[in-house]
């Protein structure tokens, strides 16, 4: 295995474009190293992104949007009070990943590009409307977070391409987001189902909404029907029931030791409702 620690994204991209065999980028290494250690994937080329300028920065832009470096750890996000006030659901989703030790290293970019359908931060990113900049041999392009994973362990990134920044929209007024997951214990486990909701209110009425589900399909889903079920409502019981059934209808989960198809589908509806209520309360300023 060759290890590189390039100083720029262009250099990282060039290294990856020229590399033979299996290439991995190294952000926090909490997936890469586990896969290496358990002999699942031994990269021929490993490209560490942590020493690239800006990779560890959390920046609030003039328009209120955020630019997050690809090597920002969960712990660094958690410690950033202002980011947590704007996007509590996104920060909490990231914070659910692993232990304190894992939080010291794990990144949003790694969680996204590892492309697990159960990745906890990904539904929150998708609901928040996070976009990423991708640097490749032909320059840079942008994509929505939901366009990155294409199947378990697979992404839409081409040879030589890597994520070089994450962009979180401006929070704006009367907006709120939330992410909830179901696991059989309270810490250190993989989501059986995850649900994220991001919405905006005018008065008491939902004017914009995004609903995303994790671990119920081969990739994290952006469920437009579920968002449509609550837009224009005050999140009354009828709207919540419509949200529940739209969320369930979007599910095509697997049966495994963590949960059956029926269980996952039912829980997706329940969590979508709870996350919507939570996001709604945050948008109104009734909850932190």
């Amino acid at each position, binding site marked *: *295995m*060759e*290890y590189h*620690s390039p100083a720029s994204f262009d250099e990282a991209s060039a290294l990856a474009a020229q590399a033979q065999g299996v290439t991995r980028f*190294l952000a*926090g*290494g*909490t997936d890469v*190293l*586990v896969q*290496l*250690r*358990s002999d699942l994937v*031994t990269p021929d080329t*490993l490209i*560490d992104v*942590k020493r690239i300028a800006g990779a560890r920065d959390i920046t609030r832009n003039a328009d209120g949007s955020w630019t997050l470096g690809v090597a920002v*750890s969960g*712990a660094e996000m958690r410690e950033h009070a202002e980011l947590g006030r704007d996007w509590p659901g996104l920060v909490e989703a990231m914070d659910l990943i*692993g*232990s*304190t*030790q*894992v939080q*010291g*290293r794990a990144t949003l970019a790694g969680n996204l590009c590892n492309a697990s359908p159960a990745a906890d931060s990904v539904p929150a990113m998708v609901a928040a409307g996070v976009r990423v900049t991708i640097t490749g041999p032909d320059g840079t392009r942008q994509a929505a977070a939901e366009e990155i994973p294409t199947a378990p362990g697979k992404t839409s990134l081409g040879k030589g391409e890597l994520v070089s920044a994450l962009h979180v929209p401006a929070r704006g007024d009367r907006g709120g987001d939330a992410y909830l997951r179901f696991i059989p214990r309270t*810490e*250190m486990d993989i989501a059986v189902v995850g649900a994220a909701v991001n919405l905006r209110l005018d008065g008491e009425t939902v004017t914009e909404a995004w609903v995303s589900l994790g671990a119920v399909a081969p990739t994290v889903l952006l469920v437009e029907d579920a968002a449509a079920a609550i837009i224009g409502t005050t999140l009354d019981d009828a709207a919540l029931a419509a949200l529940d059934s739209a969320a369930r209808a979007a599910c095509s989960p697997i049966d495994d030791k963590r949960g059956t198809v029926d269980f996952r589908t039912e829980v997706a509806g329940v969590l979508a409702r709870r996350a919507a209520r939570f996001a709604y309360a945050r948008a109104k300023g009734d909850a932190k």
Partner: protein
Amino acid sequence: MSRVHVTTTVNGDETEFLCDPRETLLDCLRDRLNLTGAKEGCGTGDCGACSVTLDGRLVCSCLVLGVEAEGREIGTIEGVAQGDELHPLQRKFIEHAALQCGICTPGILVAAKALLEKSPDPTEEEVRYWLAGNLCRCTGYDKIIRAVMDTAAEMREAV
């Protein structure tokens, strides 16, 4: 396979070693630098026995490569006591019998020290969540939590 030369600071002392790029920081500490305090329980980030700090941040050294330590500051259990003088956490762990076989203890001490530096007056819940990634097969955790809470109280009085 060519070895990589790494220069790093461990417990305040600059040090260097040669390693294969696939070697973890845990293996480098134990096998190259003879610092065998950090233990390998699982090797996959689940147990916390290998906990160290990397530029002040608590991490599992089994999920860090040795080559990543270049130019960084590592803190291990070997740097917790000052010579013969135990750190208050170490004293309290003995006082409360918060260890039996001791395999988890170095990792828990390093983790608990990192918590108390960040949060000198933690709630019990905070301590339990902070240490959730440190598994102990022997003590049942209660004595560990009590030892940490008691140390925090003592250290607050001392300042």
